[in-house]
């Protein structure tokens, strides 16, 4: 237990370090590009206006002082006002975040629900038509840009058949196309992963033992093999969730989904830099937190891992 606690603290410290690093990158990055004040103001702003804003935002102070000020405020959830919407950036993000989380979770759920059974069947019936067909399908799924898949679904299900709404959020029908499009490559990846992990597990000694004990094949597969095959799957799923949130940037634009992704794309086009900075930081913190939780879950699921092995 002591070792576990030590590991937990090590990971926690690590997580904090990564978040500080990200905040530094997103802070200094905007300064590398030149004077942020010039980015924020219209081109015809007077020298006096420029000076006033610079004073207001503290840009006349040394850089490290500015960063500390920024970090201090960020810790309290204050990122300043959005230049475009004129309201606190954090407020905007919190308002849009549920939509993005909903989309990402739906995509993850669909991907897992479809991919895991496919992966199991492919592994158990290795070399069969089912196996080859699903692996070919997975290859196509991995090769399709998700935003194009989204457009193709709009073309088929909205334009030609008129079954599903093209954009917006609200009902379950609105969620179907964006989440399938977003989850497709993940689905393909999970199907391949489940298959290869199952193949590996099924060749292990304890499975042979289970079979030779006379256990029925379904019990061997679903009770003995699947349990261990799920461990890497959980890890990968946890890590991929963050990427899903990143993927929402494009898919939300395709489906006019009112989430953080669309907000940040618009913010970038509007040069609304406090909003961009805040979004990047919030999404990164979520990403890092999920990775941390995934590690904890992994530790719980697999008591054999060596916590201090350098990965």
């Amino acid at each position, binding site marked *: 237990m002591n070792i576990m606690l030590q590991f937990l603290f090590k990971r926690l410290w690590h997580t904090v370090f990564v978040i500080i690093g990200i905040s530094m990158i997103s802070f200094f990055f905007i300064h590398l*590009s030149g004077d942020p004040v010039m980015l924020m103001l219209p081109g015809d702003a007077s020298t006096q206006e420029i000076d006033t804003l610079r004073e207001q935002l503290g840009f006349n102070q040394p850089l490290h002082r500015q960063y500390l000020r920024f970090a201090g405020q960020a810790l309290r959830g204050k990122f300043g006002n959005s230049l475009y919407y004129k309201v606190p950036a954090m407020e905007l993000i919190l308002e849009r975040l549920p939509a993005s989380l909903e989309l990402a979770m739906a995509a993850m759920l669909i991907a897992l629900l479809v991919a895991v059974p496919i992966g199991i069947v492919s592994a158990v019936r290795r070399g069969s038509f089912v196996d080859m067909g699903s692996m070919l399908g997975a290859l196509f799924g991995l090769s399709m840009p998700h*935003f194009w898949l989204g*457009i193709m679904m709009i073309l088929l299900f909205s334009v030609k058949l008129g079954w599903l709404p093209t954009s917006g959020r609200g009902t379950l029908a609105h969620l179907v196309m964006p989440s399938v499009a977003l989850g497709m490559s993940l689905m393909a990846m999970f199907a391949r992963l489940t298959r290869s992990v199952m193949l590996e597990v099924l060749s292990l000694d304890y499975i042979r033992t289970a079979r030779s004990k006379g256990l029925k094949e379904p019990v061997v597969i679903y009770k003995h093999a699947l349990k261990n095959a799920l461990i890497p799957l959980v890890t990968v799923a946890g890590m991929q969730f963050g990427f899903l949130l990143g993927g929402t940037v494009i898919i939300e634009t395709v489906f006019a989904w009112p989430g953080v992704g669309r907000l940040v794309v618009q913010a970038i086009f509007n040069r609304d830099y406090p909003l961009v900075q805040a979004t990047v930081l919030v999404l990164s913190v979520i990403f890092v937190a999920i990775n941390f939780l995934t590690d904890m879950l992994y530790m719980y699921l697999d008591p054999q891992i060596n916590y201090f092995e350098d990965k």
Partner: protein
Amino acid sequence: MNIPNTAGTSLLEAIEPRLRFMAETLREVARRPSALVGGMMITVILLVSLAFPLIYPVDPLEQELMARLTPPAWQDGGSADHLLGTDNLGRDVLSRLLYGSRVSLLVGFAAVLVAAIAGIFLGLFSGYYGGKLDSLIMRVADIFMAYPFMLLTISVIAVLGSSIFNLILVLGLSDWVTYARTIRGSVLSLKEKEFVEASRAIGTSHRVIIFRHILPNVISPLLVLGTLRVANIIIWESGLSFLGMGVPPPMPTWGRMLAEGRLYITDAWWLVTLPGLAIMLTILSINLLGDGLRDALDPRLRNI
């Protein structure tokens, strides 16, 4: 595979085992149908993208406003002048697709090269020297891994401005982590091997050990990784282009063709379908090749 000690042997003798290994590897790769099919597909795509002006010399920018939204030749209303139809400004879709292939392929391969070179150096040094340098590089890698990739590239591009050079640089430099980690892992296990110990014992410098003895041994996983990453980079490039942050107009890109075509989705299916098909075929062939290479070169990687 063993790396010979080159001291006291002729150059040919030193190279010979490596050549034989390469030939064996090539035969092994050719035995995989997926590597073969993917390799042939991507070769054809590359050749076409280089040589098409000879076969299909149509200006991708010429607007024929009288022939706006002409469907592909095989459909009612299509014409043989525009085999794959025209877009909303009457520009030839096939020609635009062909020019777009150059952007995607160039950005894809060049960005992977940038990422691989950065990753190789950082990974080699990190794994070989260990200690503080290693922790520093790996912590920076953690930060890069946690930074939402799409946002990183979008915001950098938004500030730097989008040119083909910036795209290659930004996509490449955001992707070095995977290479560095892969290499570091291989180096950590290699550096305990006898041949490294032996070279060190006879006084070989660290630089020579790293680049002559260790690097050749980590090339295989790198080749697999690099191939598969080209596919990813091309998808990202087309995504950025779709958002309006790719290579700027007038150069046609697949992503922007999709974004523009989306406005005409009810009237012109080909404008939203064909550029995506082009992306998918390219990615598919690269993935096939990458999968085949992985099976042939590195059985340990098969589970990834």
